[in-house]
């Protein structure tokens, strides 16, 4: 991974959940410090009235993950979709808002899925513009997640693309090690090589889906953690909770990935829903 002198405070271990009830249980078992919510699960209660997920309001800091902005689509970002995201981030006071690096639509065609993009110079230039526009509107760094599908014969390797994007925009990255692990098998690339090429300073979070080839994914996560200063580890329980015992083990493993001095830090950052990440 490429290096850079940048230090950040740490958010800790988080769980991705589809409803707060599940989040409460997961927090209790895992000892999670924050929740990751899908934008589609969040119900806003009207101006200034907060928000709920499945009827409950969270009592922990949250990260919100959406896909409405289709970051990889060529051209300017959809202002209506961006306004909705702005409303969402204001209402939830989320620590971060994240989107995958993909296209979910092109003119006249909705994919409703995280479709891979071509890693070309034109697409990079367009994506930089889009991420800049989003960050300007939201007033905070965007959390970009690579979906790690490798189109053949792309002009720029994905890692190079992500480095260019992070350098130009200051966006932060989430690395889904479970997806990397699975895709490396399906598409025949070396997962460790891929991770090694990512821009070290921009990697803020590792996402890991318990149960999906977990041991190999945890090994990759450990590799990423040792090469970066992670702000957090996200245990993705959005679609499946592994069970009480495995969840507890996941929590312990996740916490061990975070270097001691960067464990969850008390103070305004973790007390409120919103927090400024300090870049040095």
């Amino acid at each position: 991974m490429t290096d850079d002198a940048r230090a950040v405070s740490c958010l800790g271990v988080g769980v991705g959940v589809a409803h707060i009830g599940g989040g409460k249980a997961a927090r209790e078992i895992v000892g999670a410090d924050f929740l990751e919510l899908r934008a589609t699960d969040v119900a806003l209660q009207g101006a200034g009235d907060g928000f709920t997920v499945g009827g409950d309001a969270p009592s922990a800091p949250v990260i919100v993950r959406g896909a409405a902005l289709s970051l990889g689509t060529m051209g300017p970002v959809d202002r209506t979709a961006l306004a909705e995201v702005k409303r969402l981030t204001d209402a939830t006071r989320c620590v971060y808002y994240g989107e995958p690096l993909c296209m979910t639509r092109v003119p006249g065609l909705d994919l409703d899925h995280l479709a891979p993009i071509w890693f070309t110079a034109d697409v990079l230039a367009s994506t930089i513009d889009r991420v800049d526009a989003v960050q300007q509107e939201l007033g905070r760094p965007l959390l970009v997640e690579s979906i790690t599908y490798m189109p053949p014969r792309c002009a720029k390797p994905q890692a190079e693309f992500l480095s260019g994007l992070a350098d130009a925009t200051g966006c932060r990255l989430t690395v889904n090690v479970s997806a990397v692990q699975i895709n490396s098998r399906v598409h025949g690339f070396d997962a460790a090589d891929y991770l090694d090429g990512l821009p070290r300073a921009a990697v803020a979070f590792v996402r890991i889906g318990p149960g999906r080839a977990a041991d190999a994914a945890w090994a990759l996560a450990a590799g990423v953690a040792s090469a970066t200063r992670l702000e957090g580890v996200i245990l993705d329980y959005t679609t499946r909770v592994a069970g009480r015992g495995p969840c507890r083990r996941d929590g312990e493993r996740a916490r061990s990935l975070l270097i001691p001095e960067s464990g969850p830090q008390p103070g305004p950052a973790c007390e409120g829903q919103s927090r400024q990440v300090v870049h040095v």
Partner: protein
Amino acid sequence: MTAAELQAMTARLFVDRAFREWFRHAPRDAARGYLLSAEETDMISAVDDERLAVYADSLRERRRQAIATAYPLSRMVAGDDFERYADRYCDLNPGLPERERVLGFGNYLRECLEAEVRLPCFARDLAIYERHLVDLRGLTAARFPTDTGVSSGTMLSLSTVDSWGAAGRLDGSLSTVADLDADRDEARPWLSSRPRLASWARVAVFDYDIPEIVADLERTGVPPAASPTPTGVVMRRVGERTTPEIFRIEVRVAAMLLRCTGEPTVAALAEQCRLDPERLAALLASLATMQVIACW
């Protein structure tokens, strides 16, 4: 900006099975409709068919799954035919956003079932019933009504208006109903009101007793024998619950509600539906209290 063209073609390859097949046999011919640079033409021509198929199949399966999840009872009744219709529908509509696609399938299924004689006759009504549920579940609103005073399952009809205590529930704007002077239209300003169905309510008139059939299906998992029984239904989203409340409603009242688009006045509705205006006004007042009618 040819990169946008490359994206457009790639996305089409992901979702359009016929286009993908064309591309497989003659990539350069298929690419002719897109303004690509020579390098981009080479890039897309080099796409591995198998990888593309794996991705496209996963996308297609996800779409079929979304449809199957949205129409569980229709799937139960139509069996293999449902899968065939869902597959064909995905082919016919590769580019719709998910909500539109899933909603559109309800209409498509109903149309297909019009000519289908092997399946129970109520399957057509069931498709529309489930489409309404999908529609209501997908709504987003700052606030849905919570307590609206009438419990789910209540039969709504002109003859039960009085028992709901409609007059007692009238708010300020409706109080004129209680004081109406039947002989003078100018004393009945409510005649010119233009009721509109609330955004969180749906109305349907079915040929079969769909609430009964749904209850049977959910209890037994077996399509019941059913004879035609025209049935009106009001469905209403309540609070954060994604399962709407269902009310039976007199068919002529349902037919009237279907006309409540915010355009016709109460007077026009009464005439079109051959209902007594005062009785209609009282009914609408109750429906407004239940938050089925808005903009009264």
